[in-house]
């Protein structure tokens, strides 16, 4: 205890005294950037349909307010309770992932991912990410010793494999990748040996190869992978998205074309721009400088997550924070990477920035948990 500061011991222990304002500011800043970008991406096409140009922005703002409540909820109770309930939450989420495959779920663009609820879409796979982080952290923190056996690694993998399989057949390759990254991230921090991880990677490659052979992977997913290899092969089809996204970002130049001034953005050249391709708006309208500022905000977010993993008083907190850091990092990298042409196109939202309530609320839950671990690091 820091007795030099002169504060009373009891006050020191109150969790609220140990909020992480930097983390909160970064998450809030990213959300605001998101709302501005969603407006830029959607206002013209909404107006063209005689709808309220701010329709999506209003919805997203509503979700942000809800998100603030979620942050508070996830930060209030002691995070160690989450360890007790992690299994229950995990099973519940698995059940939802199964239910979305039934006619209860809604099929959009050939993939069945959502529940339609009171006019909003609820995407269980977004919440599954959070649940998996808790479940893995709970499982691995119960193990003793510094090194993990191959059996431990495979048991942890089995925990992740179930939701990954369910998400994969939706089909949603992007979220499957995120779940895999969470698994690897938590395993690394939890002390898995490099050799074991190598075996894991080899198994994964074999499984993916098998999936292609058995035609479990849909045609359009193969198309997207081919277009990743050669974007000019077919301009009108899936390569079109990639080419237009690159043109949009590249046309932003050093300082961008100015807010609401992007022609690629305004004329809807980039599809799904308010969701998966939201970064193209930043790139076109704010240029290299704006893109770097956005990356900077993400770095702070992820840095704080790692820092909290270091500061945590118990392994469970460390693993949760590391899982969240891995999840944010892989999403930022794959999402921005696909708009830049260095990653294949998969439907992954950019955390806090992409339009979408489930994603935002899940990310808020993660921030809440990070705060929780941070606040209770002394008691």
């Amino acid at each position, binding site marked *: 205890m820091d007795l030099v500061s002169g504060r009373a011991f009891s006050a020191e222990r109150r969790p609220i005294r140990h909020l992480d304002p930097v983390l909160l500011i970064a998450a809030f800043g990213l959300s605001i950037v998101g709302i501005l970008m969603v407006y830029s991406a959607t206002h013209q096409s909404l107006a063209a349909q005689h709808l309220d140009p701010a329709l999506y922005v209003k919805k997203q703002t509503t979700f942000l307010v809800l998100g603030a409540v979620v942050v508070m909820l996830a930060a209030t109770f002691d995070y160690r309770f989450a360890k007790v309930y992690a299994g229950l939450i995990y099973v519940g989420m698995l059940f939802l992932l199964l239910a979305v495959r039934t006619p209860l779920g809604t099929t959009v663009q050939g993939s069945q991912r959502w529940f339609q609820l009171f006019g909003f879409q609820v995407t269980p796979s977004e919440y599954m990410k959070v649940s998996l982080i808790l479940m893995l952290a709970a499982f691995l923190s119960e193990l003793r010793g510094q090194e993990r056996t191959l059996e431990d690694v495979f048991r942890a993998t089995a925990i992740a494999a179930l939701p990954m399989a369910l998400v994969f057949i939706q089909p949603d390759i992007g979220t499957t990748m995120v779940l895999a990254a969470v698994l690897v*991230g938590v395993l*690394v921090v939890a002390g898995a040996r490099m050799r074991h991880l190598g075996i894991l990677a080899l198994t994964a490659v074999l499984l993916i190869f098998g999936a292609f052979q058995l035609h479990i992977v849909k045609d359009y997913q193969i198309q997207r992978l081919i277009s990743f290899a050669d974007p000019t092969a077919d301009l009108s089809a899936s390569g079109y998205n990639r080419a237009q996204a*690159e*043109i949009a970002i590249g046309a932003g130049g050093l300082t961008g074309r100015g807010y609401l001034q992007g022609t690629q953005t305004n004329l809807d050249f980039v599809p799904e721009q308010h969701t998966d391709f939201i970064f193209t708006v930043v*790139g076109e309208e704010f240029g290299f400088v704006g893109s*770097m500022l956005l990356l900077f905000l993400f770095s702070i977010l992820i840095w704080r997550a*790692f820092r909290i993993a270091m500061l*945590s008083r118990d392994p469970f907190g460390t693993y949760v924070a590391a899982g969240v850091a891995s999840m944010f990092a892989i999403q*930022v990298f794959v999402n921005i990477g696909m708009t*830049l042409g260095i990653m294949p196109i998969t439907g992954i939202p950019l955390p806090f920035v992409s339009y979408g309530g489930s994603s935002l609320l899940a990310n808020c839950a993660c921030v809440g948990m990070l705060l929780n671990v941070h606040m209770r690091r002394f008691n």
Partner: protein
Amino acid sequence: MTDGRTGVRLRALAGLVVFMFAALTTRLWFLQVLAYDQNAKSASENAVHLVDIPAPRGRILDDRGNVLVGNRLSLQVRIDRQVIGDATEGVLFRLSELLGVKVKTLVARMDDTRYSSADPVPVAVDVQKRDAYYIMEHPKEFQGVDIAKVPVRTYPEGSLAAHVLGYLSLITPAKLADPSFAGYGQNDLVGQTGVESVYEHDLRGTNGVVKYRVNSAGRNLGEIGQVNPTPGNDLKLTIDANIQRLAEDSLAAGIKYARTVPDSSNPTQNLHATGGAVIVMDPTTGAIEAMANYPTFQPSIFVRSITDAEYQSRFSASTNYPLLNRAIGGQYAPGSTFKPFVALSALYRGFANMSTSYPCPPTYMVPGDPNKQVFSNWTTANLGYMTLAGALVRSCDTIFYPLGYDYWRTYYPPTVPPHEPLEKDLGSDGFGEHTGVDLVGEQPGRIPSPEWKASIHEQFPKSFPEGQWFPGDFVNMSIGQGDTLVTPLQLATAFSGIMNDGNICVPHVGLDVQQPTGKVVRNIRSHCNRTMPYTQAQISYVRDALAGVVSSPSGTAAYAFRGFPFSQVWVAGKTGTAQVFGKQDTSWFAGMAKAQGKEYVVVAVVEQGGHGSTTAAPIVRHVIEGLYGLPFSPFAGSVAD
């Protein structure tokens, strides 16, 4: 705090993240800084060409679902003034040859200032397919000309109910600025009058759009998206096509007949019968089953754009304003058709009772009038003594004049401003204000009052030299003359109150709004909230008296209704002959009919049609005969008020 080894692993993981961010930064630098020129060029070459897919407008149906207004596809020749450029002269000459339209006409249509210079202007509609193909196959000869396939209005029944239906034309700048027209473009057609205008937002669909990607040379690089159009909803009217046709035919035939009849006040010439209107209304609901106007017009004329000169020659004073919906926008002195309402007020206010006999001399003078102004009856004969009912049957002016004076004596100056009792009672019958019908261009009519007289004199001292209220103003009002004005629809609505035991419904022509599949989206309800202040006894007394107008041998419309089978169809009504300064009299008849479980109010007015019994009464008889499937009798009127 974590132990050292976990810390190392965390740092390793963080290092991986740093590497990923470095990769993103490098790629961003490459795309945005190094390859900027190439990407900026690609972006500027990228263009989207949006082509609207016009949504079909909803149809307009009669009460049994017959199509009154539909849609068809029309081939339009359009000129893009920015593209035609220097070639204008040659292109127009070739177009003129091909389409058989004068170059002058083409120029006039092309210079239509309502279109923005960036948009193509339609110069010919309903072009032959052959001609359209010829133009498309010879783009060099027809630089800046294109062919568009657009849905246009079609009118299977021709001019039937033209004034009710209205027509479409280019949106006006005022409407374009109106927030309720948000989403409309400068070249959009909107309903200008009639139900096309009132139910615009129901009828209009949502246009679809095809999005093409084009390169800087304008070459189509393929479709990148399409939004399908949503057709507008259909509007079902209370108008019955058969009854409407009956009303229009009766009006036209009655006018034709009137033009063979000498004007009784100047027998050297026939009646001019320049225009008129007929309304058929269900008094129990306010549903208008027919609204006929004369002269009328073909709404299909407005399918093509019409030049100002053509508009002037077709629709101005020389043709007696055929676009005017006289049934709601024509304001006429009501003449004696007003008497039932003055009688009701007089009974209600105690100036008259149901049994007293009153004298009906040829003239009347306001007691003590220093100017000794004489008010005459419509006939010079002394008709002797009669009850108030008799005064309605025989339309005795000199029994109503003293009633007018009674209002002056008792209530002037008014103790309860702003309305003294006669004005108030007539107001509660619906006179002097809009009926609220769902049509455009309704006029409020006028019940003159001392305040109105003073203010109009102040504004127009030359036309209205007198600003003071005199007993004569009431005396004139008592027989529907002086400054009193009503619209035919107001009169029909007020008579529906007499027919309907004092309950008045807001007249309407819309019945419901339906989806193209026939599913009703919205019912247009009848509103019957207005109640006349009179007792049931007073209303039925007047109603019975009005039956005498047609069936009693001394009734003013007895001749027009001679031989009518009153045992089959109950009929009542009131004639009216309104004097108009400098013109022949306005002929009125307001009729009520009841049989076979169906009630109607039928009102006819004919400008310069002479006496009510001469022109309007035979028209109403003809309509009532048609309504109940009775054999038609030839037009024959008499000279009685």
